[in-house]
């Protein structure tokens, strides 16, 4: 009996010795969000599967976690409850809050070799703006976007406009929009000239209009906002005027979630939306459509948007190295090229556009290059300490103006005052 037990132990030990190398494999848990429609989860899972094939010693558990807000909530909840999570794709603008919570490590502390350091410098600088704080890089770009202008070329032709000449300035947007707005016999509008969504991510759309006025909404440290700058007020007035004065856009609030469907059903000739929608629009549009940079106010401009990779502080040295390996794989030109073609998100480095596939794709489908070309006019997306609260102040101010509850001056003044009160603790 006793001998039997000993034998069994010995056998177990032998088995353990054989399988030990397999147990040494690193397990990574990664959360990622999807903010636009389409089968994006399948694409991410595909890339992760490719990575696991190439790196059998690393086991990746990629978890789809809803929209950006949900992803952050889930990742942080996992960390707080002691569940392991080593890296995540989260909103690029979460960086200040993640730092305040002491949840993430700078990539500068994780990269070691010269090759890795070079990799960290290989991205478009505009995409690094939201990820850099105090000279250190905390977020590496992955599913990144800018806002682009989708327009229906068929509707341009019907209205007697040149389909190759989308509006390039605010004045032209109002003029072209007026020509595209069609009313029925009752005097009710049947199709609109343009739509800019004002739910969900309205502060982001507003970031484009303010950049086009040559203004940014906050400083790089994320402890100051400039909501009531006169030019910023002008930008909000222009947004409102598109509905109330120029009447090329429905007055009031326009839903982010249904806007793409509006465009696909030809209820609006122009929409401003994330470039992350490009492939879905391409696959579903029954008409000839084009994509252009957003029109200029005093200059061109759009905020960047989307998600960055972050590595969590709780990860061990070994897990950090494995995470870095995964992130390098997913942002490599070959993967970025695939990702960009299948979604419409940008290739995050110039090298991605040098791959034969993406170079060819951009040549046959020029809209795919617009977001990239717009990068040189791009600015960081609104990102501050206590980002959720500050963002809501601006979101509410925008909606109160667009729905006619208050004037741009009043609403933005009040938002600025409240933001200053919140941020005073971070100076």
């Amino acid at each position: 009996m006793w001998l039997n037990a000993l034998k069994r132990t010995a056998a177990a030990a032998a088995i353990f010795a054989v399988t030990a190398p397999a147990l040494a494999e690193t397990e990574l848990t990664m959360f990622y969000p999807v903010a636009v429609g389409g089968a994006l989860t399948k694409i991410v899972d595909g890339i992760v599967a490719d990575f696991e094939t190439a790196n059998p010693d690393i086991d990746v558990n990629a978890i789809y976690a809803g929209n950006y807000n949900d992803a952050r909530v889930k990742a942080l909840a996992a960390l707080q409850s002691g569940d392991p999570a080593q890296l995540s794709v989260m909103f690029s603008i979460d960086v200040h809050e993640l730092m305040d919570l002491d949840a993430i490590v700078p990539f500068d502390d994780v990269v070691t070799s010269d090759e890795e350091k070079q990799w960290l410098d290989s991205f478009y600088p505009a995409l690094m703006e939201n990820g850099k704080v105090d000279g250190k890089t905390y977020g590496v770009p992955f599913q990144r976007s800018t806002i682009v202008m989708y327009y229906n070329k068929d509707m341009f032709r019907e209205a007697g406009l040149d389909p190759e000449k989308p509006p390039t300035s605010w004045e032209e947007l109002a003029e072209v929009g007026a020509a595209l707005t069609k009313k029925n016999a009752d005097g009710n509008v049947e199709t609109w000239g343009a739509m800019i969504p004002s739910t969900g991510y309205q502060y982001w759309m507003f970031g484009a209009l303010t950049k086009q006025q040559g203004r940014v909404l906050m400083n790089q440290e994320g402890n100051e906002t400039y909501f009531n700058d006169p030019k910023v007020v002008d930008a909000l007035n222009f947004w409102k005027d598109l509905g109330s004065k120029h009447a090329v856009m429905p007055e009031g609030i326009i839903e982010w979630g249904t806007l793409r469907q509006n465009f696909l059903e030809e209820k609006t000739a122009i929409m401003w939306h994330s470039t992350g929608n490009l492939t879905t629009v391409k696959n579903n549009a029954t008409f000839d459509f084009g994509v252009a940079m957003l029109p200029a106010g005093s200059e061109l401009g759009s905020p960047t948007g989307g998600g960055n990779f972050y590595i969590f502080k709780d990860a061990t040295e070994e897990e950090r190295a494995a995470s870095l390996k995964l992130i390098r794989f997913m942002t490599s030109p070959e993967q970025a090229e695939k990702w960009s073609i299948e979604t419409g998100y940008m290739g995050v480095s110039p090298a991605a556009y040098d791959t034969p596939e993406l170079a060819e794709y951009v040549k046959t489908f020029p809209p795919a290059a617009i977001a990239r070309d717009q990068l040189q006019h791009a600015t960081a997306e609104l990102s501050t300490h206590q980002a959720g609260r500050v963002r809501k102040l601006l979101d509410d101010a925008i909606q109160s103006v667009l729905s006619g509850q208050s004037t741009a001056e009043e609403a933005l003044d009040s938002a600025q005052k409240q933001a200053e009160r919140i941020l005073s603790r971070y100076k």
Partner: protein
Amino acid sequence: MRSSRQIHAWLLLLPALCLLVAFTHYPVIKTIARSFFGFGTRWEGKASLDNYRFLLEDDVLMQVLFNSFLYAAITVPVSIILAIAMALWVNSKMVGRGILRTAYFTPTVLPMISVANIWLFFYSPEIGLLNKLLGLVGHGGINWLGDPSVALYSLMAMTIWKEAGFFMIFYLAALQTIDSNLYHAAAIENASKWTVFKRITFPLLMPTTLFVLVNALLNAFKLVDHLFILTKGGPNNASNLLLYYIFENAFSFFDTAYAAALTVLLLSILVVLALVQFGVIEKRVHYR
């Protein structure tokens, strides 16, 4: 003997007690503690009333509270009246009764999130069903979810549609327990239909009405799933409700301490409502 029976009783209670303590009592106590000792996501060493002071200064909260009470004040009575009407109808002997009952009950079966996704497209100004119908009569359409003066009512309409069928089931069951002799007697007295309803049916439904009222009121404060899809509380908080506001504070702003103070407020409201319901209304309920 007596003490062993006591132990026996406690042992039988233990499983339920464990669950209640772990998932109800402990979180409530911790929430109350956090509302006094918390700041943001951190715990402070000493108690303060800062979180409660902020409750008084918070303009958004005032609007959220107003919205929540208006939401309850309209959705609860309307769902109950509709539920009684539907129950009376599908309780009568008629062809196709089964199909009608199923149709009324369907909204209850569907998950709130999928329902909200469907209604999002009903409510969409340009491509939505509702505005297309309005277009047929030459109306320019309404921005159902985007107009601050309409958004909350749009949410209410969907909630009533979703809830009324559920309450109908309880009324239907109650109607079938009413003694038919009472109706025969009323028929002999030549009582009008309204008198029959007022003097027989409605009083005998009162226990059900109390039950439904308690549930409907709780749901009015507890059910906010549709806000995530439809309006996110917008435009400019016009459709924001208390529980959604708590979620925003806890998970968008990471101000768990203030969210805890808000939760204590919500709990107090629910306790007061429950006391009023059981203390005042129950006295007037006719149990047999």
